[in-house]
């Protein structure tokens, strides 16, 4: 009673979600490049491409629902379907953050650049790494690597806080003319919003890692303290 047809369909679902993950990662990478390089065309490209990622999410939901209803999956197969549905939802939200970043970048590219902050560079790097690692652990179904992603979440939060602090300082700093200060405030707020988007990508990547741990091990590690999991408490 090997269920070849069902397992073939399940394999296709996994491939679709991996493909969606690759497109989402590209969208996020492009959003960061568009912000850093002040590239309006690239930012617009990310915004336009979001529709396609949304469509994949709808497709994944539809196919997963069909497998659940018709195939009555068990054990890891069941977790694979539920997990992939949730992961595609996280990916769609990451792609939305990429759009958000791109929209802010379009605004920022009309003005002179703000002073660079080290915290922003670190935040970009951390969120990129988190997403990359989340996708790698999804590809490899590696629960340990998935746990490593969520350990990075605190770093992302810390960098976001630092960005906020440094931009607030910038905003309150003396400026020669009131108009110039107003522009700087606008740019700073937009940049803070970008930092918030980057931080959200870290959160959503953490969620992906948690879904992978659920698929592989069948346990829910969400809302569980990392120390508890490591047996430190």
């Amino acid at each position: 009673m090997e269920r070849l047809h069902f397992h073939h369909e399940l394999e296709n679902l996994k491939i679709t979600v991996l493909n969606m993950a690759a497109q989402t990662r590209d969208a996020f990478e492009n959003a960061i490049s568009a912000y850093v390089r002040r590239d309006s065309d690239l930012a617009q490209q990310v915004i336009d491409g979001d529709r396609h990622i949304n469509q994949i999410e709808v497709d994944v939901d539809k196919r997963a629902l069909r497998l659940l209803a018709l195939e009555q999956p068990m054990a890891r197969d069941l977790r694979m379907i539920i997990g992939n549905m949730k992961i595609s939802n996280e990916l769609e939200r990451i792609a939305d953050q990429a759009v958000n970043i791109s929209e802010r970048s379009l605004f920022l590219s009309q003005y002179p650049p703000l002073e660079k902050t080290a915290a922003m560079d670190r935040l970009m790097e951390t969120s990129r790494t988190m997403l990359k690692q989340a996708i790698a652990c999804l590809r490899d179904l590696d629960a340990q690597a998935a746990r490593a992603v969520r350990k990075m979440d605190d770093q992302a939060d810390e960098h976001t806080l630092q960005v906020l602090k440094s931009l607030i300082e910038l905003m309150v700093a003396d400026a020669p003319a009131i108009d110039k200060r107003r522009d700087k405030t606008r740019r700073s707020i937009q940049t803070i919003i970008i930092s918030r988007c980057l931080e959200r990508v870290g959160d959503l990547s953490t969620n992906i890692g948690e879904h992978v741990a659920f698929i592989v091990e069948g346990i829910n590690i969400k809302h569980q303290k990392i120390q508890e999991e490591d047996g430190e408490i």
Partner: protein
Amino acid sequence: MTENVKFAIKNLDFFYGNFKALEDITLELNQCRVSALIGPSGCGKSTFLRCLNRMNDLIPTTRVEGEILLDDQNIYSPSVDVVSLRRRVGMVFQKPNPFPKTIFDNVAYGLRVNGVKNKNLLRQRVEKSLKQAALWDEIKDRLNQSALGLSGGQQQRLCIARALAVEPDVLLMDEPASALDPIATQKIEDLIHELKNDFTIIIVTHNMQQAARVSDITAFFYMGRLIEAGDTETLFTRPGLQQTEDYITGRFG
């Protein structure tokens, strides 16, 4: 809270002649719980079920080693009366097998064999059993008609009523719904949920979704061995062993 163990099976081996059909089965089945036995054809699950009320004794050249304790008493001990054992451990088979008698006489059969002659008592027990088997409302006006005129699903519930009439502790069910349509199957499954309040139920099923729906505990058998047994929800969502996982997800079998 520790549950009451109804059946404690210890190192059970079972042979058909020289063929060892069950090997070293150790398992506890709790009172007022539904335990499902699953596994591919020929894995020994039905043989195991039939060991629990010594139905295999009817097959020549069979042999049992190890122990099966029912309420702490070894059912294979020479002092055990097999007839009274089977009264305590009733059985329902895959294919409904009503006797060619009236509905009433089918249900009353076991009681009469056990010497019950009081007509009032017989009537009371027949009504109670038919109600327990969720059949009373459908057939209360035709108790004196032949049981063979009932539908397949009704016949199976009649067989359950017949088994319940002698007030057993345990009900063994060997694929009780495999010959029934989905609606009749649903009624049997609902019935199992009701009956577990009063009886210990052990069910063999090929239908894993059915095992998942009706049972509290599931035991997976493969090639005469008990591979894994445990809480049904855990076994079907997060089995402990790869072999169980492969079977329930349809990767072998």
